[in-house]
């Protein structure tokens, strides 16, 4: 009955995530994340690369594996159809005084994030994007976007864009979301 498929890497990281997450108290995990990991290295990567690869060519448009990618643009990171935002949910930090991978002054990037795989129409490659929330100030409410490519429910947390990804920051109040390239998926 199961249609479940997953790569070895996937299974390994998932099992690991669960083993860490299930047995570590909140404060322990938070402090450990905060103390030992830098913002860029702490990504629990559950890559969506395989899904892009799994999409047959007949189901692609302009080489894009999803409808979002097929109509995305690469020049304006303050619009929702910017290619990296295929799975973003929330305020664009680039419209709030930050940048596409920079937090606005007065906020702090989360060392954890959810992950999407987005198609760049410029080089026809797909990239793994870490959507790192910027935390500590309230919702900045300039350009708000909802990309849902590969967005899964919270029982797949690394692919879920509803979670306030402010684990390990000094305040868990959500301000905006960034979209940093953390790897190529093509």
């Amino acid at each position, binding site marked *: 009955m*199961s249609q479940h498929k997953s790569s070895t890497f996937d299974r390994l990281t998932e099992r690991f995530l669960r083993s860490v997450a299930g047995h570590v108290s909140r404060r322990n995990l938070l402090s450990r994340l905060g103390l030992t990991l830098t913002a860029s290295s702490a990504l629990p990567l559950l890559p969506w690369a395989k899904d892009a690869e799994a999409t047959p060519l007949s189901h692609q448009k302009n080489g894009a594996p999803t409808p979002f990618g097929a109509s995305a643009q690469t020049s304006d990171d303050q619009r929702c159809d910017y290619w990296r935002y295929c799975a973003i949910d929330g305020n664009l930090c680039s419209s709030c005084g930050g940048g596409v991978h920079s937090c606005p002054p007065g906020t702090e990037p989360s060392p954890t994030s959810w992950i999407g795989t987005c198609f760049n129409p410029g080089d026809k490659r797909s990239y793994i994007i870490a959507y790192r929330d910027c935390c500590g100030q309230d919702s900045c409410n300039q350009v708000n976007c909802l990309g849902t490519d590969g967005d899964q429910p919270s029982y797949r947390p690394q692919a879920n864009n509803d979670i306030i990804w402010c684990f390990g920051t000094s305040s868990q109040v959500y301000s905006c979301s960034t979209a940093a390239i953390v790897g190529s998926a093509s």
Partner: protein
Amino acid sequence: MKATKAGAFVACLLVGGALIGGASHVHAEEPVLQTEQSDTLTLPPAGPHRVLVQDAVYEHAKDGRIYVVDADKARLMGMVQAAYNANMAGNPAAKAFYVAETAWSHGNRGTKADILATYDSRSLAIVNDEELPGRALVTPKAHNLQISADGKKIFVYDMTPGNAVHIIDANTHKVETSVDIAGCSLIYPWTDANRQSGFSSICGNGGLVNVSLKANAVPTLTHTAPFFSPDIDPVFENSPEAAADGQAWFITYSGLVWPVALGPDSTVGTPFSLQKLAGQKPGSDAKNPFDVAWRPGGWQLAAFHRKTGHLFVLMHRGTFWTHKAHGQEIWEVDVRKPALIRRIPVPAPTSLVGITQDAEPLIFTSDDQGDFFILDAKTGHLRHKMPHLGSSLIYTLSSGE
């Protein structure tokens, strides 16, 4: 000495008021309007059309709230705070309902408090304001706060990002125990044939974990084999389920409905396709994301009328990965046959569909302007529009739901 001054102050003011009132009767024939006391209203007992409406206030989530609405009169009867990705649970017709919320002592900073607030359903007074060991901070999901069918236990989902469920005694408001549900999330409570209670959660592998609760015993966990693929066709978190009999209807992004009898060993039934019930081909999954079809989507995307077994699902035209798009129609399905009963157009694209549980049910929808719509479920016609009830209306909770 200061106390005396304050006393004299009040006396002076009362005399002033009386003098003014006394001087007034000379002016006109009509009797002078009487002076009025201030008071606080109490709600009448709830009928089946009392509904709680949660407003997440996405732009200012610290000020989320729950509106108490009389859906017959389309009248706001009161509100309570539901701060920062809150959840609500309970029955507006019962003695109390619950709000799980989060606040910081300095607003956006300082000491964080995860709270389970208990409200008296008639006075809306706060009965208990318990601080929790934690709760998941996520755009609100109904199955992050649930109550057992007997009303005796409250379940709070926590994510640190580890996964746990805190079990709270509804009488003492204290956490009895916390259950680790590693790799799984959400809470679907059930009661089995032996009146044994517990809950199931959905796991990242496409299966379920079933948590049995026995008095004075450690909760026991069983796992159901994976039955769906989270990568290719996940089930919606807001799929409807009834705690009383543990019957869940897990709806997938593509439009399949998995009937699952939840219990200590949950039993997964054979799925049916919503689109096939409408004479259409089944919706494609993530392997074919470009196919445009009618698809389920939204936030509170489905509601279930228990007595008739009718499921109401928000549907829209779109490709795969449009699972959060607003519904354009409500598809009413008799899950017992299964058969499509009707397709009801909505007054405005909506992320929300709700239903009351009585024999003359009302349907609820919303829109992006915070308007709240009340439809007659028998005719599908709009009865009332409550303009700008709030801003981000995401959930309804009706009496007896």
